[in-house]
């Protein structure tokens, strides 16, 4: 079974540009999560989808970040316009059901560098 995949693995952009990250969850997983790790800091929750609906987006830093999951399959996270502090590794995770009793499987992450 294929795991969670993310694209691209690395992205280097200039401040002010737009970047779109993609996450393909494990097939059949209704729950999809986005996290971010800024260099040297902890991994922080960004948002949680249940199918195509946003269950919780309380971790989104500001309105420059837009996450979508049309059709309830893959998800995209767009940053527009990107700022220097957006640099970090963006992880996606998925689980079949929600809650602590259901393991979240993480993708390899997308390393974003904003210059």
């Amino acid at each position, binding site marked *: 079974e294929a795991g969670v995949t993310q694209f691209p693995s690395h992205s280097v952009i200039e401040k002010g540009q737009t970047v779109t990250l993609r996450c393909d969850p494990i097939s059949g997983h209704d729950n999809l999560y986005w*996290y971010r790790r800024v260099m*040297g800091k*902890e*991994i922080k*929750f960004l948002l949680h989808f249940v199918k195509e609906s946003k269950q919780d987006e309380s*971790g989104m830093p500001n309105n420059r970040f837009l996450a979508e999951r049309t059709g309830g399959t893959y998800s995209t996270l767009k940053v527009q316009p990107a700022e220097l502090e957006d640099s970090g590794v963006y992880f996606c995770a998925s689980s079949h059901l929600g809650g602590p009793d259901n393991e979240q499987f993480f993708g390899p992450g997308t390393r974003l560098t904003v210059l």
Partner: protein
Amino acid sequence: GESVGLHLPTLSVQEGDNSIINCAYSNSASDYFIWYKQESGKGPQFIIDIRSNMDKRQGQRVTVLLNKTVKHLSLQIAATQPGDSAVYFCAYYLWYSGGSNYKLTFGKGTLLTVNP
């Protein structure tokens, strides 16, 4: 604020030795804790979990200890191998909004290096 912290950012051990990675948490309401392992170029991978009604849980070569009194969590790795070299994160689930929402809260991570 809510946080999960680590006492040691780096840990270097000899192959075959036992490793202990520590974590302190601040939210006494959490009842579910997880240790993750992140290898270079990969995402966090579940290692072992423990609920607050337990103080110890063992897996294959790993043991998690939970001390709720002092809000401390530790991961013990027996007979550490080079393949154990990775960043280890402790995490817990934080429930809010009357229990209808939850989020996974991570610590900063400890880099474990195993020397052959």
